[in-house]
């Protein structure tokens, strides 16, 4: 087994593990983009108190916020195929990655819905009234006055959510996804050097989240007027 911790192996594993980083990026980007779109619709349902849908999305949000991501992932992985089989759709042969992407997207949709809803609600009522008074329709008011202001309010929380998602993607390996952690695990099983792989994964996560945080802080300064 040799040395307990071999620094040289950290460098050796780095490129192999780093080559799995795109998997992580894929989970983060699809779940953030899909989650934001879905979350926006959910936020509108809540803000306009759409009958029937509103209580449904409220329970959905508290379910997502009240359960661990890993449970949600298992439920999607084992539950979705059963559910769809009832209506005659067989997705048993789907790549596992699709289930992971769906889970993370559904997870982010709930969090994004809350971020977007509270940002929209924080725009003072006077802004909407002024827009109405100059003749803007409800939709024009939302698009031209309320959403741009809500965007600035939501931006910091949005950035935090992206970083949180990045960290939480490491759970995907529990379904057997070959992401960075999955790769480190695979190397460890083969070589009995688990720790070095974990150190590499930790380093990549630290670097990536620092980059993201810096990037969002920079965008915040650039985007938000005065």
């Amino acid at each position: 087994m040799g040395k307990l911790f071999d620094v040289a192996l950290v460098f050796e594993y780095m490129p192999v593990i780093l080559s799995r980083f795109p998997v992580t990026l894929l989970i983060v980007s699809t779940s953030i983009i899909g989650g934001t779109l879905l979350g926006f619709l959910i936020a509108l349902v809540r803000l306009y108190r759409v009958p029937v849908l509103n209580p449904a999305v409220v329970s959905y949000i508290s379910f997502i916020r009240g359960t661990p991501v890993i449970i949600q992932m298992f439920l999607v992985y084992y539950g979705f195929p059963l559910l769809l089989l009832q209506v005659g759709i067989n997705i048993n042969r789907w790549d596992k990655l699709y289930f992971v992407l769906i889970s993370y997207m559904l997870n982010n949709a709930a969090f994004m819905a809350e971020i977007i809803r509270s940002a929209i609600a924080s725009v003072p009522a006077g802004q909407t009234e002024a827009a109405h008074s100059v003749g803007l329709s409800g939709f024009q008011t939302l698009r031209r006055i309320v959403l741009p202001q809500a965007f600035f309010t939501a931006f910091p929380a949005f950035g935090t959510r992206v970083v949180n998602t990045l960290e939480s993607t490491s759970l995907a390996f529990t379904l057997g996804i070959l992401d960075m952690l999955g790769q480190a695990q695979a190397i460890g099983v083969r070589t009995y050097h688990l720790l070095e792989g974990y150190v590499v994964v930790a380093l990549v996560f630290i670097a990536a989240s620092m980059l993201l945080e810096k990037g969002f802080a920079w965008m915040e300064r650039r985007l938000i007027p005065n």
Partner: protein
Amino acid sequence: MIQVKGVRKSFGKNEVLKGVDLNVKKGEVVVILGPSGSGKTTLLRCVNFLEIADDGDLTIGDLSVRFKHATKKEILRVRRRTAMVFQNYNLFNNKNAIENVMEGLVTARKVPAADAYATAKKELDKVGLSDKYDAYPSQLSGGQQQRVAIARAVSLNPEVILFDEPTSALDPELVGEVLAVMRAVAREGITMIVVTHEMSFAHDIADHVVFMDAGVIVEEGTPKEIFTNPREARTKQFLDRILLKYDYSI
């Protein structure tokens, strides 16, 4: 001509407007006075459909609607004939001065951007803000913000502008500049309905003064009639109190 007839509005069990009639001739300045909670703001908000009145009719020029049966289209039509100046200015925070004025013209009225820009410039110049086109609301004083808001209202060329205590949120030293702009607007012959506690301003500018209390119009008349010779005890009481409080002489 603007005619409000029998407007009623309740919030829950609280009846705030108990059948108010108001007639405003073209080019007239009507000042509404009244103690806090008498329903002045609610009346203006009903005219602009920011509140939906429970009953009553509204006529603006050749457009007549029943408050409670107004369709979305009718509401939009009423809003295109009216403009509102709010106590807290309510400039669009995501837009600079010139964009604030242009927004209603371009988005609601579909005026070509170049024409709207020219109009906005002209109106901002008129309120003395030719050096503030690009300033965002957060970069403007309260008085400047309210002047942009007045430019925004005037630019829409409405049949009436509703002012709800336009100087109440201002520091005392900024009140004068806004009142001066309002005098200029009145001189242009624009129809105005103004809720204000500025008595000497009301006295000078109003063609017609309305005194409201507890959701009804108690008394109305020319400024001279109301200020120097009120008939109703409630009007007298209110005027004594407010003139004492603000130490104005007319």
